[in-house]
């Protein structure tokens, strides 16, 4: 399972000077715009050290949630804790530890990439001016923009703009990164680099909250996911658990299709489909253990060429939860 390998490394969240507990926690977070409810009673939990994939169709309330987390929008009701401190009350002490990319990059057109970062660094009251040059240089190198540092932002391509946005989020060591659609406008190469960057940052101990449309992307890097639709958080948890919620299917490759399907039905499995031509039998696993199912099939005399338990991919689960008609990655 891809999620298992991607999430194999994480950090202990108990030890260290920081209070344990999630990096992001909201309780009953709600926000309306007029009579439209944009975010509806959302209880978000992003554990420390997680790479949390924040998913949802356009207009499902992801960005509104992120804007509330960062103190840009006021919540109508509900609570927000960021890195263990209440927001927006502790905004001044929390946000220096948080890097953010919100709804695409935004910089001054007539300044160079370097000068734009210098502007942001100068606005950070916790940034040490003595190390400013070094940190800007490192951040630009990390996103591969060193060669374009002195170019005006106006002349940047979409991918370069996106990279500069990431560099801005990396000017300081961060405990939490909030990345809204970080691979927007990047070519496959750039997308891959961002994925590696996210892994690297997570390995260094940074918690990453990443929203994306690209479900295959998220599946490769996320340890946890949350799925939003129409303002509600439908599902969240470790990726493996969320995926396990989906109906698993046993798939048996056998020349003895009749014997195998008979055994499956007798064992109590539902949705048994026998495909004689392909010599494959499938059925919903339900609460049964795969090893017991296989024993029944073999005991009945069916010769088995292959046996697999297939769980749905994030995309299938996503569509099942939020409905079709969404620009998923194919």
């Amino acid at each position, binding site marked *: 399972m891809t999620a298992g390998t991607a999430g194999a*490394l*994480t950090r202990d969240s108990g030890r*260290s000077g920081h209070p344990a507990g999630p990096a992001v926690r909201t309780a009953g977070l709600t926000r309306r715009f007029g009579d439209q409810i944009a975010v509806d009673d959302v209880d978000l939990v992003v554990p420390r050290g997680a790479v949390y994939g924040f998913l949802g169709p356009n207009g499902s309330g992801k960005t509104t949630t992120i*804007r509330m987390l960062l103190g840009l929008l006021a919540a109508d009701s509900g609570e927000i804790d960021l890195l263990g401190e209440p927001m927006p009350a502790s905004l001044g*002490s929390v*946000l220096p530890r948080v890097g953010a990319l919100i709804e695409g990059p*935004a910089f001054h057109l007539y300044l160079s990439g370097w*000068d734009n970062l210098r502007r942001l660094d100068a606005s950070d009251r916790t940034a040490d001016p003595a190390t400013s040059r070094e940190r800007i240089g490192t951040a630009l190198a990390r996103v591969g923009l060193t060669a374009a540092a002195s170019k005006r932002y106006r002349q940047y391509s979409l991918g370069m703009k996106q990279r500069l946005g990431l560099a801005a989020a990396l000017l300081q060591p961060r405990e939490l990164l909030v990345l809204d659609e970080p691979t927007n406008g990047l070519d496959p190469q750039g997308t891959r680099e961002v994925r590696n960057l996210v892994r690297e940052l997570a390995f260094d101990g940074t918690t990453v909250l990443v929203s994306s449309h690209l479900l295959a992307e998220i599946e490769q890097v996320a340890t946890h996911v949350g799925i939003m639709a129409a303002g509600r958080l439908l599902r969240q948890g470790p990726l493996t658990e969320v995926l396990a919620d989906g109906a698993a299917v046993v798939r048996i490759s056998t020349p003895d299709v009749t014997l195998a399907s008979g055994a499956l039905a007798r064992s109590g499995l539902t949705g048994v489909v026998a495909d004689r031509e392909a010599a494959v039998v499938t059925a919903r696993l339900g609460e049964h253990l795969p090893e017991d199912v296989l024993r029944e099939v073999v005991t009945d005399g069916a010769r088995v060429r292959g046996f697999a338990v297939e769980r749905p991919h994030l995309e299938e689960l996503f569509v099942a939860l939020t409905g079709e008609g969404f620009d998923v990655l194919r």
Partner: protein
Amino acid sequence: MSSAEMSTAEVTVLPRPSFAPPRTQRGAFWRLYRSEMRLLLRRRRNIALLAVLAIVPLLIGVAVKISTPRNGEGPAFLGQITGNGLFLVFTALTVALPLFLPLVIGVVAGDSIAGEAGNGTLRYLLTVPVTRTRLLAVKTLGVASFTALAVLTVALVGLVVGGVLFGLHAFTLLSGDTVSAASGLVRAVFVAAYVVIALFALAAGGLFISTLTENAIAAMATTIGLAVFSALLDAVPQLDRIHGALLTDHWLGFGELLRSNVDAAALIRWSLLHLGYAAVFLSLAWARLSTKDITS
């Protein structure tokens, strides 16, 4: 649900790294202020505006040099320029005050917050974070500095051009008395300071308007409109009862400084009126910005 429970069995647990708690650096506000001024002065548009202001005294000076005007014609003090170059400072300010200076201040003040909101940099400034009060403080200081720079541009170019073309001599006041050239210069400094305070009232209005919209052009136009509207009301005789309280009514009051018996009380009263306007506008700007939903 703690993170430990959420971790799956195959997870390798590493010790958590420690992040140094961020500390406020000394002089952070002034670093941000310098950054703000760089932002204002690196922008070609703003430099072009200052250049336009510099042309005003240059043009008047050259025009007067070519053809001496008769007394009583043209804007105030025009006739005195040939006698003393220092008067070019006052003439240029008189000419620039109704239109050019409000234009420049309208552009810079109107753009200050609406411009950042419009291009999206506001949300990144606020999440750095620059707290909203601190942002308003640095924007106010930036706009005030630019206002001073605009007035200084007119005054200094006026002084240099006037000095070169007509010389700086003993200074004849409007009341007929003569004071030394040095005393005249001191009065010019007070005139410039008075004009800066007067225009700061408009700049503060521009800052407030700038918090209301994400459209910088609309904020600029509205700010300039504020000055024009006030001047318009000032020109309607039927409204003379409110004239004294209007934003622009006492802008040319600096003439008071060119008399032998300066009515200091009046100058202070007018300056307090301007500062009062500024205080009201800045309070409104703060009330608006500190509660504003940032959706841009």
